[in-house]
């Protein structure tokens, strides 16, 4: 039985007890698989699974509180679910998790740079390559060149929290140490403050304040009452100056310190390619350093910023 058939079978059995199951369906071309809701058995015929299933479906869980929801997760998506459980935003009893071991998802922007994919009709994967038929032309590229960056350094391809595990677990692509070594972070760390300031200023200037990053984030739960839109209290001007845009992004990042599971949806959603995940990775590294904590791994752990100790092991109070 193929992995997809097995998944469909598991959902088919669970569906009568659920309001809906979050999955991916075929999109407007072979490289896109938008999220959709499976409510009826006949909806299952649209279900797809593969490297084009990039969206983290956990982003929808907050909208669906109060419903009995099934969710299909990749390894990284499962970390978001775990974090939501840890923060008691989502109730485990109202959730059925279908875990899909994952070998990586596509970065469509990378593919677009490598190949003509204006009319991608068909996509096939074999022996580490992806073959795309666009219009009447078929071309291929090595999969490792077009997988999302996060997948190339993925240490968690298998969900740790689930009700149904579909197929066999896959080997992590890299070790935890290798996963932590991030060339983009190193590059940023190598810049002096003036260079870093210029780097962010250029990128932030492009921000549209469209909030695709915020709204795609599975853990950004203020949503409709975000301080970026609030008029009372009036935290931010509506002006689209680099100052306001940067301020918003910094607040967004700060609110995710030690909570972000680095699923990368914020950066993927950004229409103008701002590397905002770097901010979150940096804060996560700080949290790891101070509290030896990684978000979304252990459902029973308390995130460090949800508690406090009178004397922290790694934070030295200023001595008087």
């Amino acid at each position, binding site marked *: 039985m193929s992995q997809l058939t097995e998944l469909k079978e598991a959902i088919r059995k669970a569906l009568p007890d659920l309001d809906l199951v979050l999955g991916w369906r075929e999109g407007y071309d072979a490289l896109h698989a938008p999220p*959709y809701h499976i409510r009826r058995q006949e909806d299952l015929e649209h279900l797809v699974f593969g490297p084009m299933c990039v969206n983290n479906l956990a982003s929808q869980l907050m909208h669906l509180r109060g419903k009995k929801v099934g969710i299909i997760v990749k390894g990284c998506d499962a970390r978001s679910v775990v974090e939501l459980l840890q923060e008691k935003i989502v109730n485990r009893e109202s959730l059925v998790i279908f875990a899909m071991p994952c070998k990586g998802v596509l970065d469509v922007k990378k593919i677009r740079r490598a190949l003509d994919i204006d009319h991608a009709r068909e996509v096939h994967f074999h022996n580490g390559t992806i073959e795309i038929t666009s219009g009447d032309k078929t071309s291929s590229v090595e999969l490792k060149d077009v997988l999302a960056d996060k997948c190339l350094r993925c240490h968690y391809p298998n969900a740790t929290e689930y009700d149904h595990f579909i197929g066999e677990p896959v080997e992590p692509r890299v070790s935890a140490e290798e996963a932590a070594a991030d060339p983009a972070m190193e590059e940023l760390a190598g810049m002096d403050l003036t260079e870093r300031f210029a780097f962010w200023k250029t990128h932030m200037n492009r921000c549209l*304040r*469209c909030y695709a990053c*915020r709204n795609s984030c599975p853990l950004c739960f203020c949503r409709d009452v975000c301080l970026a839109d609030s008029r009372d209290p009036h935290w931010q001007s*509506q*002006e*689209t100056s680099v100052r306001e845009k940067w301020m918003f992004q910094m607040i967004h990042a700060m609110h995710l310190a030690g909570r972000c599971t680095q699923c990368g949806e914020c950066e993927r959603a950004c229409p103008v390619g701002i590397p905002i995940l770097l901010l979150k990775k940096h804060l996560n590294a700080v949290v790891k350093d101070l509290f030896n904590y990684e978000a979304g791994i252990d459902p029973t752990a308390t995130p460090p910023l949800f508690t406090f100790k009178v004397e922290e092991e790694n934070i030295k109070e200023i001595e008087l």
Partner: protein
Amino acid sequence: MMASLFIVSKDIPQWLAAMAKTRKVFATQRESGAIIFKPYDPGREVVFERESVTSCKEAVFPQTKVLFSYFVKKNPETGETAGVAIEESLNKPAPQAVVFGTRPCGTKGFLTFDRVFDCDRIRDPYYTSLRERTAFITLACDRPGATCFCHWVGGAPDDPKGSDALLTPVEGGFLVEAVTEKGEELVNEARSLFAEADEKRREEGAAVRDKAKGMLTPKPDLTDIGPALEKRFRDLDFWEDMTAACVSCNMCTYLCPTCYCFNITDESDGQAGVRLRTWDACMSQQYSLEASGHNPRPTRAHRMRNRVNHKFWYHPKEYGGVISCCGCGRCVKHCPGSVDIRRILLTALERKDEDAE
């Protein structure tokens, strides 16, 4: 239309530089992989190979427009307000501007704006002052992509409507045709850069345009789209299903060349402040939030219903049947959830005889 001219690709920067002497020029440039409209910078390459992520909306309808600035005067003795000094932004004339390299769909976005901001009922001076001073040099589309549907809504990859000059990419350069006097002027100012296009080039241009039209997928008949959407108005299950992938962000509206909604806010800093007009988006929860706390469009399904209905039902009803979507496909291509407005339209059409439960 004046006779076809030809300009070689490498002379484009010179043409841009000539126009930039007396005008503000917006051109498509690449930043971190994204092609965006920015003020022309001679040090940066202008890229044409695909449609930009951002539309040229910013040139005429900036995301932030200062309507006026103010200063609240206080009586130093009592601290009471002693009047407000206001400085109108309209008193500073806008520079002449050129938008270079927008596609026909993006240029035509402003025809929708014109119907709303410059009509019998209203003439918005903040809009019209920029609109009148801006010229559009449009690039005909040579390879419409999977998300393009300009032809569904009355456009075409080489539609010159709204443009002042139209470029067609050919081997080694571009065919140039002035559409308006303004366009002719922009060509004549740098006339030495252009050669008369011979018959071979003109034929090549025609072939490029025909090929682009041939790449478009068959279009549906949208005559009944208004009534079809009306039938689905109360069918929230339909809208729930159609928006399952929507995260309710503002990206589709901000990238859209025809979305014209705005917010007006006073942004004070002590006694000084500005009244701003900034882009707003009907996909945001705050857009329809009323002062009472009631929100008539509480979910993304309600909000998407408004966005689609506005473009394909309400706007045509108000403005002589014209659909206010230009078919550029940005909302499909860049949507983080790949929500496809075409699928919404087609599904509504398929179910046009079906009453909501």
